[in-house]
């Protein structure tokens, strides 16, 4: 019936700041950055993986009225919007150290779990990001 997840969405407060973070710091690539007039369609991807894009959507009109967009921004900054991205990595320690050197602040430091090694952080807006190196058993 279905074959894959092609595009997922998270909310961001500012798309330029989102680019600085997701591309400049995390090292993702821009998939599409297009001015549609009514919105800026901005998607990013893991380098070389255009089949799985993440839409970085700014809440606002015309899709949301200003009052509703304010509520979304408030929930987002409280960490309550539920936006989460789970990335897999071959070397979680290297990912952690590379990002740490770029000044990224981690909410979860490098930890061995039952399912593998992982670490986590928040984007500048309140979404949670996780990097996991799955153990072969997991």
């Amino acid at each position, binding site marked *: 019936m279905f074959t894959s997840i092609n595009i997922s969405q998270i909310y961001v407060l500012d798309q330029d700041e989102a680019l600085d973070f997701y591309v400049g710091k995390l090292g993702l690539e821009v998939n599409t950055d297009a001015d549609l007039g009514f919105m800026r369609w901005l998607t990013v991807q893991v380098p070389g993986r255009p089949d799985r894009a993440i839409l970085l959507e700014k809440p606002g009109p015309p899709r949301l009225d200003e009052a509703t967009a304010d509520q979304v921004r408030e929930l*987002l900054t*409280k960490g309550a919007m539920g936006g*989460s991205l789970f990335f897999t990595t071959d070397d979680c320690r290297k990912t952690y150290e590379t990002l740490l050197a770029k000044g990224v602040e981690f*909410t979860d430091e490098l930890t061995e779990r*039952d*399912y593998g090694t*992982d670490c986590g952080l928040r984007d500048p807006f309140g979404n*949670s990001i996780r990097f996991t190196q799955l153990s072969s058993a997991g």
Partner: protein
Amino acid sequence: MNRAVEETNRRMLRARDAMDRDYAEPLDVPALAQIAHVSPRHFIRVFRATFGETPHRYLQRRRVERAMFLLRSCDRSVTEICMEVGFTSLGTFSRTFREIVGESPSDYRRRGPLPEVPTCFAMAWMRPRG
């Protein structure tokens, strides 16, 4: 006005994240207020307005949640787990655990092992109410 609320929310979230990360450390209000870039005097009030409970209660329930997790996923003693999640006295741990969970740590442990889900979701959903 709204920008100010968002900025405050984000700072309070940073302090809450620090409790989720460093719950085993002796975190106090001045240290958390510094992480949130607000004065210690304002911190408790603003945190409560943002998340609906005091930072002390948040941290207590985070420590109890981690203890609940460990009780059902390893075989270390109750005393070891108590220290591991940041309590300094077994008496306080047992009393707080019972008050929040409704049963003793040993009784809770008898419920058996937990299924595996990503830790961040387990931590977000299994922190008990109270």
